[in-house]
C-alpha cells in the first residue's frame, strides 16, 4: 500500500468520525432508512439530511465522478478505502438512486457536455430522483421489443405507450426510457434513450403489488406526452440500444453483487440469528448452509477479481452476465436457507423474513432473467453455435 493511500485512509477515517451524526451509526439498511433524495423527498431525520449535505459537499455521494459535477474524483483504490472505512464506522450510504447507479454512468459515457452539466449535479446532490423505463408489458426478457413510440413533431417528441417494472416511478421526478423513434428500422435499431420529466402532462403511474406485499415497481403510462427535443436523447438518435446494453451490463454487475449484503460481509449466521436447536441439528439445513457460505465467499472474491480485471483494462464484457446469474441464484438459495432455519417464526409477515425471501425471487428475473444470462454466456462467451 502506498503512503498516499495510507494518508488518504487516515484522512477519510477522521472525516467520517467528524461528520457522521451519531444517531446514524450502525443503523440498519431498509426502506425506512435509505435516502433516495428528489424533489419531494422527506428526510427521515435531520441527521439524514445533514449526512447527505456533508457527504455531497465532499463529493462522497458519487466518490469517483468528476468533481465538476459534485463527485469526489477519487481513484478506484481510494474509493475502496472510503467504502471500507464507511463500513468500519457503521456509516450508512448518504444517498442511493438510479441516477447514481444507472443514468450517471450512461451520461458520463454517452452524454453531451450540456447534458452532463444539466443532470449530474442534480444527481450528486440528491435533488432529482430518476427511474428507469425499459420493460414493456408483453415483452418480458425481450427488451428490444420496444413498442412505446416517440413521434417527431418538429420541436418536440410526442410519446405514447406503456412501461412496466419502473422502480419507484410513483416517487421519481424524471425517467430515462427506451422509446421507438423509427418504426421501420430492424428491432434493435430505431430505439432511442430518452429523458422525460415525470411532471409532464400525460405521464401517469400505477404501483404494482408484488407477492411480497410491497409495491416497489409501477406501470408507467405515456399519453400524448410532449418532450422538448433539446437534450432529450442520450447518445445518437435510433442508437439507444447501445446505451441500454451498456447499462444492462452495468446493472448486472450491480445486481449480481448487491443482493443481501454479501459484500458488507454478512454471514448466514448474522442473518439467521439464534438458531433453534432442532434446526441446527438438521444435517440438511446444515449442509445447505455450509455450501452456501462456501459459494458466497467464493462469489464475493469473484466480484473482486472481475473488478480487478476491469480496472486492469482486461475486458470483462459479456462475462458480467455470469455475475448477474450467479449472484442472484445465490441470493435465492440464501433466503431459502434463512426461511428454513427460522422455521415457523418466519411464516409471519411481521417477522420480516418472508418479504425479503419473496423479494429475492425477482432477483433472477429483473435486469435480465437467469435464462437470458445463460444464453449470453453460452453464445457470447463460450461461442456455442446457434445451429
Amino acid at each position, binding site marked *: 500500500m502506498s503512503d498516499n493511500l495510507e494518508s488518504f485512509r487516515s484522512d477519510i477515517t477522521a472525516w467520517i468520525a467528524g461528520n457522521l451524526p451519531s444517531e446514524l451509526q450502525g443503523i440498519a439498511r431498509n426502506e425506512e432508512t435509505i435516502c433516495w433524495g428528489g424533489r419531494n423527498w422527506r428526510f427521515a431525520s435531520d441527521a439524514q439530511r445533514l449526512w447527505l449535505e456533508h457527504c455531497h459537499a465532499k463529493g462522497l455521494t458519487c466518490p469517483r465522478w468528476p468533481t465538476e459535477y459534485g463527485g469526489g474524483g477519487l481513484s478506484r483504490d481510494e474509493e475502496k478505502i472510503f467504502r471500507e472505512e464507511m463500513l468500519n464506522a457503521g456509516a450508512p450510504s448518504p444517498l442511493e438512486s438510479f441516477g447514481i447507479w444507472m443514468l450517471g454512468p450512461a451520461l458520463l459515457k454517452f452524454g453531451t457536455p450540456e447534458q452532463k452539466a444539466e443532470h449530474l449535479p442534480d444527481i450528486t446532490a440528491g435533488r432529482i430522483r430518476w427511474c428507469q423505463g425499459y*420493460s414493456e408489458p408483453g*415483452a*418480458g*426478457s*425481450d427488451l428490444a*421489443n420496444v413498442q412505446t413510440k416517440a413521434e417527431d413533431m418538429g420541436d418536440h417528441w410526442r410519446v405514447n405507450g406503456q412501461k*412496466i*417494472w419502473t422502480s419507484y416511478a410513483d416517487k421519481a421526478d424524471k425517467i430515462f426510457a427506451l422509446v421507438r423513434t423509427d418504426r421501420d428500422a430492424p428491432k434493435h435499431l430505431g430505439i432511442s434513450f430518452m429523458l422525460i420529466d415525470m411532471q409532464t402532462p400525460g405521464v401517469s403511474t400505477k404501483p*404494482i*403489488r*408484488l*407477492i411480497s*406485499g410491497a409495491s416497489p415497481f409501477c406501470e408507467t403510462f405515456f399519453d400524448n406526452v410532449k418532450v422538448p427535443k433539446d437534450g432529450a436523447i442520450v447518445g445518437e438518435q435510433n442508437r439507444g440500444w447501445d446505451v441500454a446494453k451498456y447499462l444492462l451490463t452495468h446493472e448486472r454487475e450491480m445486481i449480481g453483487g448487491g443482493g443481501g449484503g454479501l459484500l458488507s460481509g454478512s454471514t448466514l449466521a448474522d442473518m439467521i440469528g439464534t438458531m*433453534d*436447536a*432442532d*434446526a441446527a441439528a*438438521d*444435517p*440438511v*439445513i446444515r449442509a445447505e448452509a455450509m455450501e452456501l457460505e462456501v459459494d458466497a465467499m467464493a462469489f464475493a472474491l469473484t466480484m473482486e477479481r472481475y473488478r480487478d480485471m476491469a480496472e486492469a483494462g482486461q475486458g470483462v464484457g459479456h462475462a458480467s452476465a455470469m455475475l448477474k446469474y450467479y449472484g442472484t441464484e445465490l441470493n*435465492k438459495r440464501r433466503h*431459502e436457507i434463512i*426461511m*428454513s432455519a*427460522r*422455521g*415457523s*417464526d*418466519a*411464516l*409471519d*409477515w*411481521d417477522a420480516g423474513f*418472508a418479504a425479503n425471501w*419473496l423479494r429475492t*425471487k*425477482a432477483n*433472477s*428475473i*429483473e435486469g435480465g*432473467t*437467469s*435464462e437470458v444470462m*445463460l444464453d449470453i454466456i453460452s453464445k457470447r462467451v463460450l461461442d456455442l453455435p446457434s445451429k
Partner: protein
Amino acid sequence: MDKLLDSDDEVMLRDAARGFLDENAPITAFRANRDAGRPFDPGLWAEMARMGWAGVLVPEESGGADMGHRAAGILSEEMGKTLAATPFISSAVIAATALRETGSDRLAEISGGDALYALAIDEHVKHAPTRTALEARQTGNAFRLSGRKCFVADGSTANRLLVLARTSGADGEDQGLTLFDIGADRAGLSRATANSIDARDFATLDFDNVDATGDDVVGDVDNGLAALAPALRTGQAALAAELGGLSSGIAAITLGYLKERKQFDRTIGSFQALQHRAAHLFAEIEVTASAIANAGRVLDADPETAQVAVSLAKARASQTAKLAVMEGVQMHGGIGMTDEYDAGFFMKRARVGTEWLGDYGHHAAIVAAARGV
C-alpha cells in the same frame, strides 16, 4: 395391499371433488378470502361436511363416511390444487383420528362440520413433539395448564383444542406427555393470530392456569404421544397430499403459460432449456405422487407401521413443492412476481405446508434411519 392406483371408487371421489372445487373453491375464492382477511369460508366447509368430507375418517356410527386415508389424501390433494383453505386437516383428519380410538362423542360434531379443532403441539420454530414444556399440573383428577404453544394451525378459529402438555418428565423426553381435548373458550387461554404468509389461520396460544379434568384426557396420562402418534401420521399424510396437489396445480398453470407466452418471436415453451426443466419437474411430481399414494395405502392397511411411508411422502412432497413453486415463479418471469397473478399464493402456501407437522429434514431423517443411514 392395494395397488398404487386409484380404485374405481377413488376415481369417482376424485372426479366429484375436482368438479366441486373447481366450481366452489377455485383460486379466485382463495383470493377473495385473503382480501377479506378470512382464513376460510365457513359456508364452504358446511357444504363439504354435507358431502361427507368432514367425516371422511369418522366411523359410520358417528355419522361419518369412513372412507379411509387414501380417500382423505385424494380430497386433500384436490384441495391443494386450487388452494382451497378449510379446517380439513386439523379437524377431519388429525382430530378425527385422535378421537376415534376413544370413541369420543365429539366425532359426530366433527363429521357434522361443527367441531373445529386445532392441534396445539409445537413450542419451538421446528416441529418437535417431545420438546414440550407446557405444564399440566395434576391434583387428583384436576389439571392446570400453563405455557405457550406456537404455530397452531387453525388456532384462532377453532372451537376446540387438542393440547399436548407435560404431566411429568423433562422437556425433550418422550414420556410424561398427556393429550387434552378442551374447549377453546376456557378461562386462562388467550390466542394471538399470526399475520401468516399463506393468509390462513395460525396462532400463538398462551395458557395461564387453564383448568382441565381427567375427562378431557385423550388416551392415558403420561402417554400422550401414543394417543397422538396415529393422528399426527394421518395429518402428515394429508398435508403431503395437499402439497402434492399444490405442486400439480402450479405445474399445470406454468405449463399453460409456457404454451401460450411468446417472446423473441417464439413460444417460450419451445426453448429446450425450459423444456428440460419442465420435464424434470414432471418427473419429481410423478415420483412424489407414488409416495403420497403409498402413504394412504399403508395407513389404510397397517397404520401402526406407517410412519416411514408417511414421512417419505411428507419429505418428498415438501421438496417437490419447493421446486414446483420456484420453477413456477421463475418461468412466469415478472408477472409471476405480482400479487395479481396466482403463482405467489402457491409459493407461500408451500412454505407453510413444508414447515407444518415436520419439515423436510425431520421426515427425511425418519426415512433414512429406517434405511440404516
